[in-house]
């Protein structure tokens, strides 16, 4: 029996039009992501990785083709519905952390729950658990400027996890970190994946990509390869 993929892209293209000049950032890309996968997206700068990620994360819509989240065509959902899905089902991690500078760590982590209608007490309780999971509970009341890059990224990951999302999308999460800190963040992602968390991660670093079971490569907006490394296959079979 083939399980319904979590995410499925069908002939997805995204064309930007500025002053009459059309730039096609993503061209005719199709693939599925199943529950529990960890996927690396690679490609040179400007190859359309972030554009692709924005569409998976419901921040952007394809110009052609369709993105399905749990079987639903996201283009057919209302803007408000897509926002709610971002709060509940998507966890974003950015290269530049994107924590709110004027809020402390725990408030930053709790932020997505504000948009899920969760009470303040429960928000804080869940934020504590989330911070605990990334080993940052002891810094809960520190502000981003008081934290190192690696620590900020851990807080950002705690924020991405707080609503128990279907999928975590990370756009170069280690891009701003030194290699040792980057490796720690990567280990954190690997640990999360072992608990069943679906993760899609954009990276430039081939070393990081090899630690993911599956690697999707883009070039000039086109999908050039989609490889799953056999020896890292999980015991249960992956729907393809």
């Amino acid at each position, binding site marked *: 029996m083939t399980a319904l993929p979590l995410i499925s892209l069908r002939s997805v293209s995204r064309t930007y039009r500025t002053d009459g000049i059309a730039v096609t950032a993503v061209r005719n890309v199709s693939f599925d992501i199943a529950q529990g996968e960890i996927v690396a997206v690679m490609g040179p700068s400007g190859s359309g990785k972030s554009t692709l990620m*924005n569409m998976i*994360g419901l*921040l*952007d819509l394809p110009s052609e083709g369709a993105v399905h989240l749990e079987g639903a065509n996201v283009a057919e959902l209302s*803007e*408000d519905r897509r*926002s*709610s*899905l*971002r*709060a*509940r089902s998507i966890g*974003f991690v*950015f290269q530049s952390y*994107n924590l*709110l500078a*004027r*809020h402390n760590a725990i408030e930053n982590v709790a*932020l*997505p729950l*504000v*948009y*899920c*209608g969760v009470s303040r007490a429960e928000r804080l309780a869940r934020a504590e658990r989330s911070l605990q999971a990334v080993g940052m509970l002891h810094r809960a009341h520190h502000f981003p400027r008081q934290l190192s890059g690696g620590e900020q990224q851990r807080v950002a990951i705690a*924020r991405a996890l707080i*609503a128990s999302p279907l999928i975590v999308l990370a756009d170069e999460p280690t891009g701003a970190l030194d290699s040792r800190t980057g490796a720690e963040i990567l280990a954190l992602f690997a640990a999360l994946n072992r608990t069943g968390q679906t993760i899609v991660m954009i990276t430039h670093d081939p070393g990081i990509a090899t630690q993911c079971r599956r690697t999707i490569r883009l070039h000039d907006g086109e999908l050039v390869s989609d490889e799953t490394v056999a020896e890292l296959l999980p015991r249960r079979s992956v729907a393809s």
Partner: protein
Amino acid sequence: MTMLQGFQIALHALRLNPLRSFLTMLGIVIGVASIVTVFAIGSGAQLRLQEQIRSIGANVLMITPGAVYQGGVRLKDGSKLTMTEGDVQAILEQIPEIQAAAGSLAGTAQVIHEGKNWNTTINGTTTGHFMVRDWQLASGRYFSGAEESGAGKVVILGSTVARELFAPGDDPIGAQIRIMKVPLEVVGVLDRKGPAQDDVAFVPLSTAKLRFLGSASNINRDSVAYIIAKVAADGQMAGARAEIESLLRQRHRIPAGQEDDFKVQDPAAAMEAQQGAIRTVALLLVAIASVSLLVGGISIMNVMIVSVTERTREIGIRRALGGRMRDIRLQFLCEALVLCLLGGAIGVAGGITLSMTVARMAGWVTSIDGEAIGLALAFSIATGLIFGFYPAHKASRLSPIEALKTE
């Protein structure tokens, strides 16, 4: 996101920049404070007038001296006492609509009782005065006929004078007081009628003439300074007035075509007109104060637009984390509302303080009513909604992807 969360986020954001927040709301503060103050002074003035109208009594006509010609020269109105006790008598007897009438002579003097003294108005009149003004006694009695005709050494005190001269437990009735060295017996104390009215002492007209004002050069034996007369019914005011005018012209032998040497006035009507004027001026001042509110609103809009630009990245983050467009709009609208409400509250407090200061320093009566405060707060909420909407709308329309790319 709920309204409450919107306000929490707004308060958090505003607290981070208290000086800027305060300066932003200053226009609202000033506008609301001026509205509250103007209302307080305006309605204080109205209250005072209403009290005066009430204290005059209903359906009262007042006759005062008018212009006089002496050797072909027109003298100033009121410079000569042209009315007499005979006029009072004639008005009472010959005009059926008049229920009561009294003539008065008045001046100021010091009244002394034991160690205490007090400067007040001394009004020489007859018991008719109290009838015209519907003025009851708190204790004691009015003047007797013998006292009125025989310059009796008696006095009826207004409640302020009684309070100033006598200790709270003391009964003034029967006590001796002195006015200009003349000892007088207190026979009555009047009911309270209002702060401006109660500061007075009444003596019989004959007493005033004989003992206090007799030496004044412009007073002959029969003169009174003014006459008050009570008309039986509201609808008879105009008729009674015309009759008094023709009676007095006849008595004063004023040839046709010459100006009257007296004026008949309806003080209540005059004050009502004055009241209308006060209302107009107050409305004008409120309109001016509203301009300050408008300027305050524009300043809030301006700062909010800057704030939206500064916080573009925050907006992008909130959108990416699931904030709907309406959540972002609500957040910034709440910020504008909090600014306006806070400004409004500070303005109300400032306005109350200001009008109380004015009341103390200038001695004006001010009155702060809930209606004015409610109106001022409603104005500031409206300002927040109107001028906060555009920046909030602008914030909600930002593309999350573009917003996340800004530095």
